[in-house]
């Protein structure tokens, strides 16, 4: 019973497979580093539309920063994880590990 009360809550913004993968990918970048939208899209194997939807949800939560700029005449979009997003991902993985421990899963 006590174990149930101690179970952490999972961040609903990250707790969806597609967004989890977005955040996990961006988390490998250094602080302040950005990834271009097409590169992220290709890396995750998502369609542009699908990725855009998830990115805007993450942006609304303040977890990612989306920078739109121009290189010459071509518009380019860069995506990066905010400090808040990084922290949220850290908390999320901590919570998942806690869940695993609580369920007596493999170490």
């Amino acid at each position: 019973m006590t174990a149930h009360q101690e179970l952490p809550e999972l961040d609903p913004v990250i707790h969806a497979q597609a967004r989890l993968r977005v955040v996990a990918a961006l988390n490998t970048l250094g602080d302040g580093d950005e990834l271009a939208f097409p590169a992220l899209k290709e890396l995750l194997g998502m369609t542009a539309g699908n990725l855009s939807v998830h990115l805007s949800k993450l942006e609304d939560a303040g977890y990612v920063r989306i920078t739109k700029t121009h290189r010459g005449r071509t518009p380019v979009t860069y995506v990066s994880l905010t400090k808040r997003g990084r922290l949220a991902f850290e908390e999320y993985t901590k919570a998942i590990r806690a869940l695993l421990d609580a369920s007596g899963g493999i170490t």
Partner: protein
Amino acid sequence: MVDDDAVPGPEETLRLIEEQRAATVRRLKGDPLLFYAPWGTAWLIGFTAFFLHYGLDGRRYAPISQGQALPQLPPAEATLIWAGMSMLVVAVLYMAGGAIWLDWRMFFAGVWVAAVDTLGVLLGIGWHALLTAVLLGGGFIVMSLWLRRRG
């Protein structure tokens, strides 16, 4: 894979995170197999040749012809200086790289090269060549495969 609602269990989730991390690192930082294995292969071949040329106790197993770089010194000592210094530079560069990119595995590779190099220089040219071929040449090949498996 992009189903919004399909959230796997905790074990599966951790595996997913790890897979994504590995795939991203491989893509952005390059394949570890290409990063370490070519050096390992080169050292394995080159230092095995040195080892066969000089042997462990002065008896040569398979002499090979080679240029004389430091004419003031006997060939064995000249070779040991060149080989020892070269590996020391490699060690320092790996340690510096590991420190700059905060990659402890790269830093450890540098420490490992420095340790084997130092031991080899103390033991003499034959041992230096043997240890470098096996522990550094072979070691880097094994490390690249291990890093690739782990991602």
